[in-house]
């Protein structure tokens, strides 16, 4: 933060900045939304339990999905902003949040995989070890352009449509169109581009402990870089 913010009022206060009363939008009395919230929680819980009795995993996915969406909405966590804001505003707070989340999930997934490996069980998630190559970078670049223009990545778009930002139904529609097209033609892409690149599973290359150490070191390095970048940018903006 800059050193000139001593007269900045705390978030949400009113009346600190003088503004002509004519421009102040007339406030409608707000209805309490708590009854709707309780009703919705009951419906969500009911559907979750119903799904869980049919198939436990289905119910589990329902609740984890709900929890993920809730946290995403309440924290304004946005993967798009985490990669866009450093360039646009110099803010890296979300970048650091995403890196922290990556570090925590890395540890969690590592623990799950390693415990399976130590017990001699098949390592879960091997189906997600996919070839890495030029196609990854080209795809990431196109995805990056798309998510900045449409105002959200996949989870962000879903969350904002749910929140009531109707314009992004447009993004959601074409997100589905694109997904369907890519799913329909995936075999061709796989045959001609994807399978020509190598698959890399870090523990195979670096050993189990080497893999987690290297991964956390890279994330830690990026976190420090993001922190320094954010501070440098914030300082230069303020002067």
């Amino acid at each position: 933060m800059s050193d000139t913010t001593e007269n900045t009022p705390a978030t949400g206060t009113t009346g600190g900045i003088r503004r002509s009363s004519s421009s102040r939008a007339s406030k409608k009395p707000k209805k309490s939304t708590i009854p709707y919230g309780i009703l919705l929680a009951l419906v969500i819980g009911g559907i979750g339990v119903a799904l869980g009795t049919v198939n436990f995993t289905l119910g589990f996915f329902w609740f984890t999905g709900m929890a993920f969406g809730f946290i995403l909405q309440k924290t304004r966590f946005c993967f798009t902003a985490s990669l866009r804001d450093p360039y646009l505003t110099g803010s890296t707070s979300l970048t650091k949040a995403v890196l922290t989340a990556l570090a925590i999930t890395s540890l969690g997934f590592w623990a799950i995989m390693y415990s399976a490996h130590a017990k001699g069980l098949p390592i879960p998630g091997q189906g997600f070890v996919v070839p890495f190559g030029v196609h990854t970078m080209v795809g990431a670049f196109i995805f990056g352009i798309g998510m900045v223009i449409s105002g959200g990545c996949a989870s962000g778009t879903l969350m904002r449509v749910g929140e009531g930002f109707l314009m992004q139904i447009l993004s959601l529609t074409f997100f589905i169109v694109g997904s369907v097209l890519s799913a329909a033609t995936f075999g061709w892409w796989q045959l001609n581009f994807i399978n020509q690149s190598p698959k890399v599973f870090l523990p195979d290359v670096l050993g189990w402990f080497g893999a987690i150490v290297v991964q956390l070191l890279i994330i830690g390095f990026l976190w420090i870089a993001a922190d320094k970048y954010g501070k440098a940018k914030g300082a230069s903006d303020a002067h």
Partner: protein
Amino acid sequence: MKEVTLDCLGEACPVPLVKAQKALEDLAIGDVLIVSIDHSCAMKNVPEWAREAGHNVEIEEVDDGEWEVVIEKAK
């Protein structure tokens, strides 16, 4: 003291921010810029950018899911 209102209702995430940055450039110190937004993401990055740049910022929820970010240019 001038007061400018920027209507960003219906604009998705980076647009309100970019518009606010541009609009604020044309204002003098002490002028007030009011950015109307209804995209929750802009609720985060517009005030964050403005505070970081050293301006005075207030957020007012005008209606459910509709906010006004009031920025007083401080430098």
